[in-house]
């Protein structure tokens, strides 16, 4: 990592993205800073995944620009970008007969040169990625035989095998149980601290975002509603207006970070003992 923490890795300049007739992201201008963990929040269909796809280069902005380290993303060599930025979509597809080891090896594609065999550096990167993602025991298992959580970790191994310094993750915790959710978020925090890995992820769980991220961005209808440190922006009013539903926000006594609960207003069901 050459540049210092806090400088802009990505910059969106009035970027809009159209999916069919629908304007999914509207003239968005924001920066993603190096070494930060950013969480993108918002209701379904608010443009979170589209924003991530814009950053990954898998979608080009209809108008405006996406800059990576000051250069327009589409002007850069795709493989050069892929050696720096890894992207994991929400529900990636893969042949069921692919093994976990083979999937992780695909992460070396941007590092490979035309018609050259894999080298020691490739081997080491894949091994490290698989052990970080805790899938080394699953190396020879095919994806079709894995649980949802194991498969998700196999994809994380692919992304890490790219040896990126920016990781873009679309709802990485969705298919994981609570233990593996915590493992993944801890792994990201560790890579962020030790290697300065920049992380941008879409999260559904607001409390998770509050704990895992340095910065949270709230999107609604393709536009930014709030953007700041979790303790500043994840207030009851902010979250309630973003999602159009009442929530309660309290602070975790240990971390001091917000915990968000839906205000369910459940009808009074009386005592449990009324059931025979």
């Amino acid at each position, binding site marked *: 990592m050459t540049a210092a923490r806090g400088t802009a890795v990505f910059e969106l300049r009035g970027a809009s993205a159209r999916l069919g007739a629908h304007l999914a992201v509207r003239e968005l201008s924001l920066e993603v800073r190096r070494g930060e963990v950013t969480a993108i929040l918002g209701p379904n269909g608010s443009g979170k995944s589209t924003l991530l*796809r814009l950053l*990954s*280069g*898998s979608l080009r902005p209809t108008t405006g620009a996406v800059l990576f380290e000051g250069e327009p993303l589409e002007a850069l*060599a*795709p*493989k*050069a*970008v*892929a*050696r720096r*930025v*890894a*992207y*994991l*979509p929400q529900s*990636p*597809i*893969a*042949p069921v*007969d*692919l*093994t976990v*080891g*083979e*999937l*992780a*090896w*695909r*992460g070396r*594609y*941007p590092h490979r040169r035309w*018609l050259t*065999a*894999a080298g020691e550096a*490739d*081997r080491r990167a*894949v*091994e490290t990625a*698989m052990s970080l993602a805790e899938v*080394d025991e699953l*190396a*020879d298992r095919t994806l079709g035989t894995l649980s949802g959580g194991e498969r998700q970790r196999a994809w994380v191994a692919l992304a890490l095998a*790219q040896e990126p310094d920016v990781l*873009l993750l679309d709802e990485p915790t969705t298919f994981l149980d609570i233990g593996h959710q915590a493992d993944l978020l801890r792994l990201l925090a560790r890579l962020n601290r030790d290697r300065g890995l920049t992380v941008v992820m879409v999260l559904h769980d607001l409390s998770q975002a509050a704990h895992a991220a340095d910065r949270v961005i709230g999107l609604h209808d393709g536009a930014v509603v709030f953007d700041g440190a979790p303790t500043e922006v994840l207030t009851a009013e902010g979250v309630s207006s973003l999602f159009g539903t009442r929530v309660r926000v309290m602070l975790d006594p240990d971390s001091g970070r917000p915990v968000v609960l839906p205000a369910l207003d459940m009808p009074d069901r009386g005592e449990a003992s009324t059931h025979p």
Partner: protein
Amino acid sequence: MATSRPSPRMIRAAPALSGAALLLVLAMLLAVSVGAFLLTPSEVLRGLIERGDPVTARIVHDLRLPRVMIAALVGANLAIAGALLQGITRNPLGDPHLLGFSAGAGLFAVIAIDVLPATPTAIVTPAAFVGSLVSAAVVYALAWRSGITPVRFALAGVAVAALFTALSTAVLATSDRFTQSVLAFLAGGLYGSGWDEVQHIWPYTLIAGAGAIVMADNLNVLALGDDVARSLGMRVERVRLGLVVVAALLTGSAVAVAGLLAFIGLMVPHVARLAVGGDYRAVVPLSALLGALLLVLADTLARVVIAPVEIPVGIVTAVLGAPALLLLIRTRT
């Protein structure tokens, strides 16, 4: 640890590849030996180097050898094209026949025969070749909407196949010029193939086949979806167009010399995948060998099953292919 091996499937694929190559050589020797005259292995070998009895040498060298080579080349071309199209469409039904690549060849061949009845074979071959490229281009253009998606490509292919087949039938039904040779072309056959046909196809097999093998690793990445492939640094549209062109060249040259052969492109890649798994770097070369093997054996059967009359080899591949495919579906899922 298992993870340290660079490409475990390639190591696992080595026995399958060498086994298939050996079987192919044996099948070709068998195919040269079998026919109206049954030749001994030593007669075959002496015939190959044009020694010994001149009549035997002529049978081996001028009649049977080119035909066996054509069968091998056509089988390899169709099987590679099938593997590529299955990879491009991410669909197990990817096949030059089902996706309309062959239907265009058929249509152009039928039109050529109808318009220019005097010179059938000389015109039919290039017409079929052009038709195959045209239908590939039409499928690609129909599927294009600021990019190709595998599903649109597959659906466009099926539509073009149906349309071009219907047009062929329309030309056939309204024409009074049709001969045995048209029927043989539509059913797929290698009757009368000689060194001329070998000359027509081997450069395509060599160049497009080599291109397919070199590009095979891209199919592995493409299999992870367009978004992931792009994020891994692949220029997805460019690679996909390249693969479509290679598949069209392979199909066009195969159809031009052998007519419409169903099932090889569809079935062989599945068999290859059963043997070596999903890595296209192994699937593509193994498909080539198995496709060649299958068509050499099928053509031998077509020559001898009701000898001295031949049946079109396309009928043999369909009769063998349909149940084999059903068996594959039942055992795999």
